[in-house]
């Protein structure tokens, strides 16, 4: 069995000597996952991500990449950055070239790839994010949602095995969220392991196949979906419950609908409207 893409073993970190932000973090991200990281603002999500991409050095513990301890040397970080990429929440912090194409090509050019290969990588990344038509546009004239996609394309152009996204859906309207999730599913289908931070408990519930809770300096991986229906773990993380698992419990008490598992209001609406009645409640 291949080792996890990234693994943290009893990792601790603090920006100031005696104020730890994270303590005793054990977390493994195996290839192929769709992992949602839930937690309140200031709870340590971003710090966790920055440890995983080597932007911060762990105070205690070990970070392993593909099973080998991360070396924080030039070449060690270079190798890491081709395996793991982090996309920050605010796209404006990540776009610094004049046009979309130039911006996306930044990483491949820095890798020292020959120009045809740079072009191939950019075309691929733009295609994956469905923004090929934006290639020649100046970055500052794009909408917020478009800028988000360009920022993600810039990371994808380095062909990371693991792509980490910090609050990718923040600021998008529901339609924009759905469209972005479909695009991410496409990336996942192409073999990219995904990890994203979100406040939206329902989004995490319906999108992820692994849930990680980050709150008050502790990281809890492998949270079961049912825990999102409420309880101490969720309340401790200053999060509200998700609708979906509660609705599932409710459905199991509703004649003729037991076992139905809608994960979005759209699916629930469909269930309640027409085809939902294909199991007539008698």
């Amino acid at each position, binding site marked *: 069995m291949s080792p996890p893409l990234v693994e943290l073993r009893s990792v601790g970190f603090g920006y100031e000597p005696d104020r730890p932000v994270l303590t005793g973090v054990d977390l493994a991200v195996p290839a192929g996952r769709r992992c949602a990281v839930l937690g309140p603002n200031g709870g340590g999500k971003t710090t966790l991500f920055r440890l995983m991409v080597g932007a911060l050095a762990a105070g205690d513990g070990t970070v392993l990449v593909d099973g080998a301890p991360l070396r924080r040397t030039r070449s060690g970080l270079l190798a890491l950055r081709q395996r793991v990429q982090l996309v920050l929440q605010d796209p404006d912090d990540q776009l610094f070239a004049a046009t979309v194409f130039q911006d996306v090509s930044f*990483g491949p050019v820095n890798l020292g790839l020959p120009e045809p290969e740079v072009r191939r990588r950019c075309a691929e990344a733009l295609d994956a994010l469905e923004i090929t038509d934006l290639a020649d546009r100046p970055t500052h004239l794009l909408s917020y949602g478009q800028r988000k996609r360009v920022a993600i394309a810039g990371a994808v152009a380095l062909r990371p095995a693991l792509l980490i996204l910090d609050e990718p859906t923040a600021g998008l309207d529901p339609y924009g969220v759905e469209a972005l999730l479909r695009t991410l599913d496409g990336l996942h289908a192409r073999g990219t392991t995904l990890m994203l931070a979100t406040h939206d408990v329902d989004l995490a519930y319906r999108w992820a196949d692994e849930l990680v809770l980050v709150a008050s300096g502790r990281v809890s991986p492998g949270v079961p979906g049912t825990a999102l229906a409420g309880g101490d773990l969720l309340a401790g993380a200053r999060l509200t419950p998700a609708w979906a698992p509660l609705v599932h419990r409710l459905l199991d008490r509703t004649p003729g609908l037991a076992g139905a598992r809608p994960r979005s209001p759209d699916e629930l609406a469909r269930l309640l409207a027409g085809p939902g009645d294909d199991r007539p409640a008698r």
Partner: protein
Amino acid sequence: MLALDAAAYAGPWRYRHPGEKALLAVGLLGCALLLPAWPGGALTGLTAAAVLLGPAGLPPRVLLRAVRAPLLFIGTGCLPMLVAVSGPGSVRWAPEGLATAAATAGRAGAALLCLLLFAATTPLADVLPRLHRLGVPVAVTEVAALIYRMLFLLLDSARAVRQAQAARLGYRTWAAAHRSLAGQAGAVFVRAFDRARRMEEGLALRGYTGSLAVVTEARRPSAAFVAGTVLLLAGVVLAAHLLPTATALLTDLPPVADR
């Protein structure tokens, strides 16, 4: 974040009137500059450091980090005083420069501590709205206040852009670093003017028509602090004058007694 700025808001002198802290720090700065480096400058520096780490409560860690860069300048700047050149290629050691170098380094070191005594205890938020009382035009103080507000926003942007570039291998080679740096400066520039435009709209909604006047938090000057400051300054000046006389007396006396 900027450590000195953060320290000024966190320290025990946070709510003191900026004027009294200015009196103390600038008064000591005057002593550092005008008194002879030995022993006046040394006394002033010691006093400033003691006040800074004692009642003003600055963490030693912050002080050490703040003095690093200026001390480097002082050190480098004193080296040329130790050599003399009389023409192209004719360079010699100049031991007579040692006194100047030592005096300059002492004066600058003491003055640096006085500057920090003000910088690390006095939030600019208290200083800027009061500058017009010193004759600075209101338009200039308001622009200064806007610079103060926006520079933190832009520093955050610059930091984030740099991290994002580093993640995408932007500092791998010398050429890449230059490209990245230009991108960073360009991105911050665009952000700066975007900020200005958006803030203009945001302030228009709050009724901005040309004046950015605000009410400042009341800060009552403390008579005790001012009196203490005056005493301390007088003490430093007095000690600086008495100490040489006293040491001269002490060093002169024994031989006299011998005879």
